[in-house]
């Protein structure tokens, strides 16, 4: 007979249960579905025991080279994750719960979300946050849509320093919508003020920026944001959360909407996911914000409790008129990030940011001293910067991989004409010794 190791009824139960509903066999349960609809051709392997499955997946996993010394970032970073993050978030009560539709039975999830929302507003210096979106790219898209809803306009200006990974996603998503999407090339590694001023007229609804940008350059965007406001547009800034430990925040620059990817806040790289997109905004725009939002309230006895609030914006009520089609969030990933931020705390978080910057600073000194290597832009940076090499960066990376080093990300993959440009990223995990080895090996292959 067929076995599902996770189905819980015994053969005797099944017999009795089938009889109680007037069926003889399982096939009877499907008898109302025409037989011609049913298939018996399922070309799948036989089921494995847990032991066999683990052996198989372990063998497959070993084909990855996960032990490279990693200087490849481009928006996704190899940060240290304290053990308590895993151990707390793998508790079944968090792990196997669902969307808090019954708030009295989900106060753990809801309070954690309220704490997460608070943490995000404090990192970004914004007033309100939702309880997470899929990832940094879709969060930026949702931020853009939100800006267009607020301004009732349909033109978007995007700085080319915004991650090309996100920009390609924006292109896909806007293709079927009546949105005019225009990219503004960088000037000297940062947003081109003159170009923005020229293009910002009364039809632009959203200006999308990123700090630090894809090349790692830091910029005080206050004036660009003021320009956008002057034209009646909404400024959306994508931020790298760890940088917010030391770098001027989008809130301090008067951004209207802040988005970003929370991967660096306690989530493993895991070959691309799951990550989380964060989003924060000013209180006056909260009703235009997509995604779940948790609010505090009280019960009949005056006890504090938390609920999902402002649900009238959402798809299960508004259907095709909803603020977004998103019906879920990245609850468990958001939980990881609030546990991570709580463990680091006010000072630890600043220190981690400083360590990243410090290591990048040392590497900057070492790498630009190599003959033939030049900085692409001589601008302030946080933990990542771009170098011009005397030869193809893709080739250089390929050469160093055989030495156990992922030296960085070749910018030419996204920016034609930049085939010699290498982006190098540094986290608190990279040691002086590792950076010295990178410098020596890089020198040897050039």
């Amino acid at each position, binding site marked *: 007979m067929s*076995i*599902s190791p*996770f189905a*819980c009824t015994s053969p005797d*139960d099944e017999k009795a249960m089938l009889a109680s509903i007037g069926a003889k066999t399982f096939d009877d*349960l499907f008898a109302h*579905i025409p037989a011609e*609809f049913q298939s018996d051709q399922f070309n*799948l392997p036989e089921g494995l025991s*847990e032991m066999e499955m683990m052996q198989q997946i*372990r063998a497959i996993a*070993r084909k990855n*080279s*996960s032990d490279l010394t990693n200087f*490849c970032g481009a928006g996704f970073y190899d940060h240290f994750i304290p053990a*308590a993050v895993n151990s707390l*978030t793998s508790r079944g009560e968090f792990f*196997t*719960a*669902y969307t808090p539709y*019954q*708030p*009295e*039975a989900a106060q753990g999830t809801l*309070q*954690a979300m309220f*704490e997460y929302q608070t943490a995000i507003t404090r*990192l970004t210096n914004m*007033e309100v946050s939702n309880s997470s979106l*899929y*990832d940094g790219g879709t969060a930026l898209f949702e931020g853009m849509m939100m800006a267009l809803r607020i301004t009732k306009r349909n033109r978007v200006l995007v700085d080319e320093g915004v991650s090309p990974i996100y920009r390609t996603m924006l*292109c*896909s998503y806007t293709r*079927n919508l009546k949105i005019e999407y225009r990219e503004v090339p960088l000037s000297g590694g940062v947003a081109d003020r003159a170009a923005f001023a020229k293009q910002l007229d009364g039809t632009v609804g959203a200006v999308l920026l990123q700090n630090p940008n894809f090349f790692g350059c830091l*910029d005080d965007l206050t004036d660009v944001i003021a320009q956008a406001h002057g034209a009646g547009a909404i400024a959306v800034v994508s931020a790298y959360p760890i940088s917010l430990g030391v770098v*001027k925040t989008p809130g301090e620059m008067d951004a209207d909407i802040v988005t970003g990817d929370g991967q660096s806040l306690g989530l493993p*790289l895991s*070959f691309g996911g*799951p990550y989380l997109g964060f989003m924060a905004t000013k209180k006056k725009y909260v009703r235009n914000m997509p995604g779940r939002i948790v609010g*505090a*309230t*009280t019960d009949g*006895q005056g*006890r504090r409790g938390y609920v999902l*609030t*402002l649900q009238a914006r959402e*798809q*299960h009520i*508004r259907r*095709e008129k*909803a603020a977004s*089609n998103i019906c*879920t969030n990245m609850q468990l990933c958001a*939980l990881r990030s609030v546990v991570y931020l709580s463990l*680091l*705390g006010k000072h630890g978080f600043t220190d981690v940011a400083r360590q990243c910057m410090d290591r990048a600073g040392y590497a900057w000194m070492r790498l630009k001293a190599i003959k033939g290597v030049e900085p692409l832009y001589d601008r302030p940076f946080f933990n990542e910067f771009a170098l011009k090499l005397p030869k193809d960066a893709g080739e250089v*990376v390929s050469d160093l*991989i055989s030495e156990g080093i*992922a030296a960085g990300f*070749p910018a030419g993959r996204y920016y034609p004409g930049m085939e010699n440009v290498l982006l190098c990223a540094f986290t608190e995990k990279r040691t002086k010794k590792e950076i010295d080895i990178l410098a020596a090996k890089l020198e040897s292959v050039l």
Partner: protein
Amino acid sequence: MKLIYEISSKGRGGVRIPEDRISEHDIISKNLLRAAPAELPEVSESEVVRHYTKLSRLNYSVDTHFYPLGSCTMKHNPRACEAAASLPDLCDTHPLWPQLRHGGLLTQGSLQILYSLERMLSEITGLAEFTLQPMAGSHGELTAVMMMAAYHRDRGNKKTHIIIPDSAHGTNPASAALGGYAVVTIPSDASGDMDIELFKAALNDETAGVMLTLPSTLGVFNPKVKEIIKAVHAVDGLMYYDGANFNAIMGRIKPGELGFDLCHLNLHKSFSTPHGGGGPGTGPVGVCEKLRPYLPISRVAKTKDGTYTLDYDFPKSIGYIAPFYGNFAILVRAYAYLLMLGRDGLRATSDRAVLNANYVQEKLRPYFAAVTKGRCMHECVFSGKTLGEGVHTLDLAKALLDRGYHAPTIYFPLNVPEAIMIEPTETETRETLDAFCKDMIEIFELSKTNPEAVHAAPITTPVGRLDEVAAAKNMELTFQ
């Protein structure tokens, strides 16, 4: 319970940061720095551990409670799937490595898992090819609508709207709108299926496609599905299978063989990956042969020499819809689950899910108004109209919390008054189902004899009924 910010005390911290500064990187001018550190809590590791452990205990979860949340498929999450997804060789891999020159060789394991899972899902659904990139069911819907749009654009079709039954999840119309289409809603008929006459009247040359959940959110398998598909194809429309309820038919019915052109699957539902309090999910999309060119990039390919690689060269593709390859760690869990189930386990799973739902339906039928006269699929829908005077479905839900169950889905589908939607799943024992039905019946009887007692629920939960109106009005969304 206090917030983590309320137990904060100046000078504490939960992690020791290495102090070895290796440079004095002070090239950043003041105007680029934040004015003051972010006000994160100052707490020791033990305080963090105790705080979140206590918080976790305020939750109902599948690990601790029966969770018959209709349409959400809250079944047991095998622990081996967690172990597989936690392997360091899978966790510590940067998603950009395979995009480096010769970099595919660094990530053969991850790529093999993606490739193998795609092939298995194709086999299970009868569709030609899958993308694993969509990060949730609704993201899968949007991806599918974008592919529909690309197909029609390519064919020069003038299409303006998508047809959706009124019983569909709200994400269907929202995704169709975000894909640039108007939505035409078709009411359900007396049996809970999309009204076929109204559907045919709405169908025309401007129909881009139809989004159908099968079995429907009423737990009914629409026997006219082939007729609907034929009519849609006759106007060069595309038929989309919303896989929210795939748990009822997997291992028995292939949507592709029925004639569906696209489908999404909720791996967090049917393929048992934990819901995590509401996410991450993952919603892979499968397509038939003619839609293959429109799939998002990148795509995983197997080369002649048996290695795996990423392929970007698809000029008709809708482009990138995710930064990388989907929620990889969730995909690993689904792959591990499928390896353990195998061919026979797959069918056994849906068989038991349907048995358990019918068992509950028949036990409760004498008390509550069942929507289905005959067999249901993996979930059963009732109306709470038969409860005592002044007692509503919401009251029943709260009374269930007091008895140690998470409540069923309530007030959905929207076309059933006072709806109660129960999905027991295959991972519950007969004893659990018997006890649950007994409690449902007791609450039903209490609603007749002592409605006030039902109104007062819940009383055993950490908080009582919360003032949701005040939450929306006062909007306290962060701790000040």
